[in-house]
């Protein structure tokens, strides 16, 4: 569905020093620097796949999405989405995709959202019957019935985002580019939007690329992730596999019934943390079940939990590794 080969995007930016003196200086002479926002990116995404795009601010996520949706022309390399060259922006291509960027609205601010939907219906040439069915479906899934007839400017952030999503998906695109779809929303609303995206993907076999600051969005929706750093891909693959390769150990949290000397505990595994009755061990993946059985048998255990290390930490590790390799 999506094919990307050696995609690059370069920008020139004007730079300015701080303060009045810097402003004066750049008033007369601009400093210019070339930034490689995307620097040779290749990947393929199959129909129906949901892929998480991760990376720090300025890593090149949004620029890549803009190239894939046809807003930006690549400096080098090529991209194909649903068989189209995005930048040609053929009408049929535009009817196949959608791009959602945070809260940048396509809704008309001073009118009820319903009016914007009607405009989109006409622009995307959606027949009445189909429009009604889709609206019905979205209204149920997103709980829109009370929202549709209110002026957009009077909606809460979450309500507006739901309408934004519905407007962007009204023409049932096959490819979804979602740039921070849950930014600024409260946890409940995040879950809501996530569920909706998952349902949409299921129902229409839509291909989804998603960027998000909230790791929970990605872990909940995407099996596969692509991690970019400084315009390059540093990881592309299964989220579960990433957990295994980058973090070969799990965290085992124990609550004891009575105090046990540190020396005794250290015999079982390396201790991450010890505070009174609470112990945290780091245990290699392969030994988790053996170790757990042993601990339960030999220590006064009140409670035991086994977890993966937090994903943010793993991604962080990935960045450090990638940078270290570059520096060597």
């Amino acid at each position, binding site marked *: 569905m999506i094919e990307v080969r050696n995609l690059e995007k370069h920008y020139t930016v004007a730079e300015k020093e701080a303060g009045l003196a810097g402003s004066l200086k750049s008033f007369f002479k601009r400093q210019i620097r070339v930034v490689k926002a995307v620097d040779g990116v290749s990947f393929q995404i199959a129909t129906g796949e949901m892929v998480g795009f991760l990376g720090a601010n300025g890593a090149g996520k949004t*620029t890549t999405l803009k190239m894939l949706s046809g807003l930006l*022309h690549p400096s080098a390399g090529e991209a194909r989405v649903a068989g189209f060259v995005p930048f040609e922006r053929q009408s049929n291509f535009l*009817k196949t995709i959608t791009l959602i960027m945070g809260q940048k609205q396509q809704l008309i601010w001073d009118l009820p959202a319903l009016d914007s939907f009607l*405009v989109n219906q006409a622009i995307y040439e959606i*027949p009445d019957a189909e429009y009604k069915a889709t609206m019905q479906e979205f209204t149920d899934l997103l709980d829109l019935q009370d929202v549709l007839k209110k002026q957009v400017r009077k909606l809460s952030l979450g309500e507006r985002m739901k309408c934004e999503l519905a407007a962007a998906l009204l023409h049932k695109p096959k490819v979804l580019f979602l740039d921070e779809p849950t930014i600024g929303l409260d946890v409940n609303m995040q879950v809501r939007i996530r569920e909706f995206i998952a349902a949409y993907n299921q129902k229409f076999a839509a291909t989804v690329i998603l960027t998000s600051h909230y790791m929970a969005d990605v872990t909940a929706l995407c099996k596969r992730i692509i991690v970019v750093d400084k315009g390059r891909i540093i990881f592309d693959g299964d989220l579960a596999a990433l957990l295994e390769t980058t973090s070969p150990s799990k965290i085992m949290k124990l609550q004891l019934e009575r105090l046990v000397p540190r020396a005794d505990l250290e015999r079982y595994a390396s201790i991450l943390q010890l505070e009174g009755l609470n112990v945290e061990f780091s245990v290699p993946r392969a030994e988790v079940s053996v170790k757990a059985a042993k601990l339960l048998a030999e220590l006064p255990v009140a409670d035991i939990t086994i977890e993966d290390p937090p994903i943010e930490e793993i991604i962080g590790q990935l960045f450090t590794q990638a940078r270290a390799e570059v520096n060597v």
Partner: protein
Amino acid sequence: MNSQPMSPFENTWRKFKALFGAWLAHMTVYRAEILIWMLSGTIPLIMLAVWIGQAQAAGGTVGGFSASDFAAYFLAAWLSGQMIVAWVAWEIDFAIRQGTFSSKLLRPINPFWEYFMQHITERFVRGPFILAVVALGTLLIPGTRLVASAGHLLVYILAIILAFAIRFLIAYCIGLLCFWLENATALDELYFVLSIMLSGSFAPLDFYPAWLRPILEFLPFPYIVYYPAQILIGRLPWSEIARVLLVQCVWLAIIFVLFSWLWKAGRRHYGAVGA
């Protein structure tokens, strides 16, 4: 997927209806703002008062114009100025800076039509206010004949549509310059100042210095306010009216070529550097 395919004509008609309906509703919400914005075009009305004062001071007429002649001319000039208002340069500038231009580009319709429809629907909301002012002016200054004949009115409508198209496309071109310039809306203000000066809002062009007249004929400005106003009040012979309409069409063609080129180049540039 599609249950019943629609003809291209039907699709276009639906798009027109949907955009018209939505933007008319939007402009109705903004009627108070529109009323206030109308005040930014007061120059012809101020000049109306000034010239009547001048005519009175001179004992009745100045340069062959009586008070009611001035009233007819300036009311027609004000009406024309109101009909051709275009703020699309600001809209484009705002959209590019806020990033909403991207989402407009992603729809399978040229953003041009959305902006065009905004202006058309706004005219419907502005219309009643304009008529009220014009009617009031005609009543206050006795003997004012704003419309020469039904025929003149019809030709005026054609001329003012052409004038609007010229002004709208100029503003659109200036807006497209936002792809390259930091703030192209300043250029639109520049245009506005020039147009107040040279379009005949200050005085009927008959009063302008003799050396300036021939230069003005080669600029678009007189053709969007002065000549339409002259047509409405019946000061032009029919042969001259035909010439005016022809020149308007030539200007429209020139600016349309410029617009198409800027749009193509602008899209390429936007694709190259983003906003």
